[in-house]
C-alpha cells in the first residue's frame, strides 16, 4: 500500500473534512456547506472547488507557482471578510492534521503517517504563498479605494462643488 494510493483512496474524505473545517470558520455555515450551486453559494462553492484543486497539487508535489490560482480563489474571499490575517490563512494548514487523522484511523494505512513529510512540506509552502496572496489582495483593495477617490466616483455624493475646492486650494 503506497502513499499515492492512500491519497487516492482517501482524497474525497480528506477534502470534505478540509472544506467542512474551513467553512466552520463562518458564523452560520450550514448553508455554505450544503448548497452545491456555486452561483447560489459563492463562498462555499469557491472554497470547495479550490481546496479540491489544491489538494491534487499538494499530493503531486507540484511547483508552488501552480498553487496560486486555487489560493487566490480562496484568499481573495477571506481577505475581505472579518478575519485577522492568521485566521484568513490558517484553514489551509488544517489539511496536515486532517490527513494524519484520516490515515491514522485506517488500520491498513496507519503506517503512511510516517511518510507524510513531503506532503506536509508542500502544505507549508502553500501556507507561505497564501500570506503573499493575502497581502496582494489587501493591496489591490487599497488600490480600488484610491482609484475610486481619484476617478471622482467617490464624489458622486458627499462633497463640495469642485470650483469651491479649487478656490480652497489657492
Amino acid at each position, binding site marked *: 500500500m503506497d502513499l499515492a494510493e492512500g491519497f487516492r483512496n482517501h482524497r474525497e474524505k480528506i477534502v470534505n473534512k478540509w472544506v467542512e*473545517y474551513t467553512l466552520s470558520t463562518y*458564523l452560520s455555515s450550514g448553508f455554505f456547506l450544503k448548497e452545491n450551486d456555486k*452561483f447560489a453559494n459563492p463562498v462555499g462553492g469557491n472554497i470547495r472547488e479550490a481546496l479540491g484543486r489544491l489538494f491534487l497539487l499538494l499530493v503531486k508535489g507540484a511547483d508552488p507557482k501552480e498553487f496560486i490560482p486555487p489560493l487566490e480563489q480562496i484568499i481573495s*474571499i477571506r481577505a475581505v471578510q*472579518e478575519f485577522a490575517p492568521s485566521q484568513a490563512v490558517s484553514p489551509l494548514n488544517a489539511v496536515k492534521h486532517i490527513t494524519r487523522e484520516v490515515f491514522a484511523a485506517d488500520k491498513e494505512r496507519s503506517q503512511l503517517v510516517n511518510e507524510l513529510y513531503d506532503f506536509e512540506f508542500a502544505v507549508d509552502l502553500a501556507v507561505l504563498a497564501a500570506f503573499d496572496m493575502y497581502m496582494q489582495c489587501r493591496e489591490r483593495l487599497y488600490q480600488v479605494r484610491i482609484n*475610486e477617490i481619484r476617478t471622482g466616483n467617490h464624489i458622486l*455624493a458627499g462633497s463640495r462643488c469642485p470650483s469651491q475646492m479649487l478656490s480652497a486650494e489657492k
Partner: protein
Amino acid sequence: MAVPKLQQLAKSVVQGPSLATGAIPTRDWMDIPVVFKSGNYAYPAKKEKVEYLNSQSGLHFPNAREWSPEDDDWKLPEDWKEIILKGLKERLDKFRSLKIFMDCCVRCGACADKCHFFLGTGDPKNMPVLRAELLRSVYRNDFTLAGKILGKMAGAREMTVGVLKEWFMYSYQCTECRRCSVFCPYGIDTAEITMMLRELLHLVGVGINWILEPASNSNRTGNHMGLQPHTFKDNVEFLLDDVENLTGIRPNISFNRKGAEVLFITPSADVFAEPGLYTAMGYMLLFEAIGLDYTWSTYASEGGNFGLFTNNETMKKLNAKMYAEAKRLGVKYILGGECGHMWRVLHQYMDTMNGPADFLEKPVSPITGTVFENAASTKMVHISEFTADLIKHGKLKFDKSRNSHVKATFHDSCNTSRAMGLLDEPRYILDHVVDWVEMPENTIREQTFCCGSGTGLNTDEIMELRMRSGLPRANAVKYVHEKHGVNMLACVCAIDRATLTSLMNYWNPGVSVCGLTELVANALVVEGETRGELEEGLRTML
C-alpha cells in the same frame, strides 16, 4: 495527537474577534450585541448637513450633532424610546404593508440564503428573515397581545439602546435590493422593512453622511454633487467637445429650454464621472441621430433620489422637483436616462406621492409614433424602452463591428429589474449592437444579484463590506469572463457604473463597466459623421 491540535487551530481561528459582530452566535441571536469598529460602519452624517435638511420645509431631521457609532453614548434625545415607538405606531397606521409584513412571516426560511450580504458574510443577522426580525421583535413586544404577555417566548423584546444600535448596523447592511422578496411565498419585502428602520433611526438623528449630504445637495442645487447650474452646463459641454472630436458630429443641445418636447433627466454622475461620461456622450449622439427635440435642465440635474434611502418625505420632495421643472418648462413628457433608484421611485411610489402628472401628456415617441401606455400616469419613459422602440421600427442604423473590441454581459440592476420589470428591452438592444452572453440563470433578471453598494452604501470607508456583499455578482461575472472572454459588464444604472467598476477592479481585473447607451452610440451610424477607426469606441483617446 493530531485531533487536539486541530481543535486548537480551530480555536485560534474561530474565536478571534469578528469585525462585524464581535461574537460567535453561541447564544440566541437576540443576545449578541453589535460592535462598531472602523471599517464596519459608514460615517455618521455631518452636523451641518442634518441641520440644513431639518431647516427645509416638509423635512424632519432632528438631533443634529457630532457623534460616533464607536462611542457608547450616541447622544440620543432623552425621550428617544418614546420617539421610536411613536414613530413605529404612526407608520403601522399609515402603511398597511408594514403591518402585514410584521404579522405574516411564517419563518419558512425561503429568503434566508438569498441575500448577498448573507452570502458574502455568513452572518445570520444578514438573513432577510432575521433582519426583519430586528424590527418585528420590538413590534411584537409593544404592539401585539402575545408579545405583551409572553415576551421573549413569543419572540418579543424591549426596545433598548442595544437594539437601536443593531438596527443601525443591519439596516445599513441591506441595499434594499428586494432579491429576498422574490423568493418569499408571502411577498414580504424586507427592503421596505429596512426603509422603515432607517426612517425610524432618522427620527432620533441616526443617519450616514454618504446619504444625507447628497440628499441635501440635491435639495439645494438639484444634484448630488451640489453642482451649480453653470458648472453642470460646462460639464455637459465638455462632453460635447469629446463627441465632436471622435465622430465629427457636434450634437445640438440646450438647457432649461421652454417649449422643448421632452425633458431629459439622468443621474448627474453621467456628466462628470467615469465611466458614466461615455454613457452621457452616447445619449447626446443618439438624440442627435434621431433629431429629438429635448432639453437638459440645470435644476432637475439629477435623476438619482437619495431621499429613497432616508424617509418618504425626502423621497417625495426630490421626486417632485423633476415634475416641477417639467411643468415650468412646459414639456410634453420626461425621458429618463440610465438610473436605478430614480426608476424605483418612479415606478413604485411616484403615483401615490406626486401623481398623476396631469399637466404633462401621455408620452409618444416623436420618431415612431409609439404611445407609451405604461407611462400614461407618470409621463416618464425609460431610455431603454425608448431606444428599443426605435430599433424595432428600424429607425437606427448600426455597425456592430464598431463594438468588436467588446464582449459584453449584462447586469440587471436591482431597481430596474425587480422594481420596474425592465428585463427584455436592454437585451433586445444588446442583441443589435454588440456580441454578448448571459450570466448564469440564477444571477440575472428577477434573480439578479445586487452590486453590493446600493442605497447609499457606495462609500469607500466600508470597502471590504462592499466587496463581500458584491461577491455573488462578481462571482457570476468571473464565470463568463473565464468561459467566454467577457471584458465588459454593461448595465443601466449610474450607481452600478461606479460601484461595479470597483467591484471588478477587485474581483475581476480585466472586466470594465459601461452603460448600455455607450454601446448603442459606439455602434450607431450617424448621417454626416467623419468617424475614423475608434478602437475603443467613445472611450478612444485621440
